């Protein structure tokens, strides 16, 4: 029982981190038809910048805020200078975002060195609780809570605000949104910024969770996020959270029982989805 609960919590926490990455990917894809292969780079930048500030100031909260701001900033730069110039050309876009990924991860090595960096949670999130004989690690619960909070927040933004309404309308018909007098470029930038901020947040949360960060972590997590985006349906925000939890849980349980197959199982899941429901388990663009 103890084991099951812990594997579940572990899977949920990993799932939430993947969700933070995948949510931006799927939103950006849904609205702009851009698959941002540099998204993992934003994730890694969030981790490095946030944990660096955390180590300098000693405050994890300031670190997190700083990571999100880094994400916002890089998101704006990416949208304005990398994506916008090649907007409308799919092949060019895919190629250019991968190039950016390359530059972003190498820049990390230039600034913070090529070696991995260790990280640990702040004191108040260290350790664990014991509930009826079950040991629950605090930091995992923290990640799950933050993930849930962000999910609810974005869901509120999408469903209850005018900008969210415009985003949803834009996913369905970009031309019409513009013909109704809305500057879609500004909406693009907004969504890109939010997506990048979420990715960066995911990165900084991952640090103390896995204990170390390295420049390759962006690509590693991006692959999981791509799997999630396919399973959840490209452009489907709600689908992305469900798929992320699914991938997180399957990863966590497989890693315990058959560790060598954990990535393979997720790949298999993706292959099956591609065969039977290429629009994703939860439908595209919902």
């Amino acid at each position: 029982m103890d084991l099951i609960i812990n594997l579940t919590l572990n899977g949920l926490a990993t799932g939430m981190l993947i969700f933070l990455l995948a949510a931006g990917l799927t939103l950006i894809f849904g609205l702009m038809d851009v698959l941002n292969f540099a998204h993992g780079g934003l994730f890694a930048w969030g981790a490095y910048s946030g944990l660096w500030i955390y180590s300098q100031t000693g405050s994890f909260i300031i670190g997190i805020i700083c990571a999100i701001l880094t994400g916002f900033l890089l998101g704006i730069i990416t949208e304005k200078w990398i994506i916008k110039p090649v907007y409308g050309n799919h092949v060019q876009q895919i190629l250019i975002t991968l190039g950016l990924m390359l530059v972003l991860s190498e820049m990390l090595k230039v600034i913070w060195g090529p070696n991995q960096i260790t990280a640990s949670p702040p004191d108040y999130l260290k350790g664990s609780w014991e509930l009826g004989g079950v040991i629950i690690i605090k930091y995992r619960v923290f990640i799950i809570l933050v993930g849930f909070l962000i999910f609810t927040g974005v869901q509120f933004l999408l469903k209850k605000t005018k900008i969210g309404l415009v985003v949803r309308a834009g996913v369905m018909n970009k031309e019409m949104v513009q013909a109704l007098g809305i500057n879609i470029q500004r909406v693009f930038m907004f969504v890109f910024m939010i997506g990048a901020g979420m990715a960066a947040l995911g990165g900084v949360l991952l640090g103390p969770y896995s204990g170390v960060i390295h420049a390759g972590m962006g690509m590693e997590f991006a692959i999981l996020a791509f799997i999630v985006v396919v399973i959840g349906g490209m452009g489907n925000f709600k689908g992305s959270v469900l798929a992320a939890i699914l991938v997180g849980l399957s990863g966590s349980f497989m890693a315990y029982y058959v560790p060598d197959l954990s990535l393979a199982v997720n790949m298999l899941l993706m292959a099956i989805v591609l065969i039977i429901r290429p629009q994703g388990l939860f439908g595209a663009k919902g």
Partner: protein
Amino acid sequence: MNNDLLKLDKVETHIGQYHILQGVSFEVKKGEVTVLLGRNGAGKTTTLRTIIGLNPASKGSVTFKGEAIQSLPTYTIAKKGIGYVPEDQGIFAGLTVEENMRVAIQKDDEETAKRMDWILNLFPDLKRFWKKPGGLLSGGQKQMLSIARAYVNENELLLIDEPSKGLAPIVVEKVMDSIIQMKAETTIVLVEQNFMMASTIGDQFYIIDDGRTVSHGAMKKLKEDEEMKRKYLGIA
């Protein structure tokens, strides 16, 4: 200054490598309904898309209320007071009727509320399906929603692309009636293949053929000109 609300002067438009519009010129007077006629593929839809900026003109000028708008982005053109009802109606299928209207509303003021009331009285169906997703509406209701959405802001000009397309004759009549009522409130450029509808609503007409405006005049005249109708519209 003359009283032309909209003026196109030798407009040319390219889409990709195709030279679609090769010289479209016409004037729209305030309060009138101008109908663009012509065969399929003549460039009528592209003309409307060029006005709203979705397929920007590569040559020539589009003047709205005395201001050149041909190189402005679509959303700025729309904000200047042009509403657009595309051929496929452009309904946001996953949004409710209410949300479809809310996306369109630019100002949250009394005037807009008044216009909203007016248009909903014209199309009571929309009020009935207020919370229903736009994708589930019938073809006629989608058309009404699209027109209402274009009208709700203080737009001085509406561009309406083939409102009768794919609708049952009885629904066409309904849509036609409503456009006639809107005539009193706003200026309209209408693309229409249904000659009965075009000739009932239209004040003046322009015929577009092979990307050029080839003929124009008062609608009344065209009704009697059998040869013109046969030549350009394939009807007799």
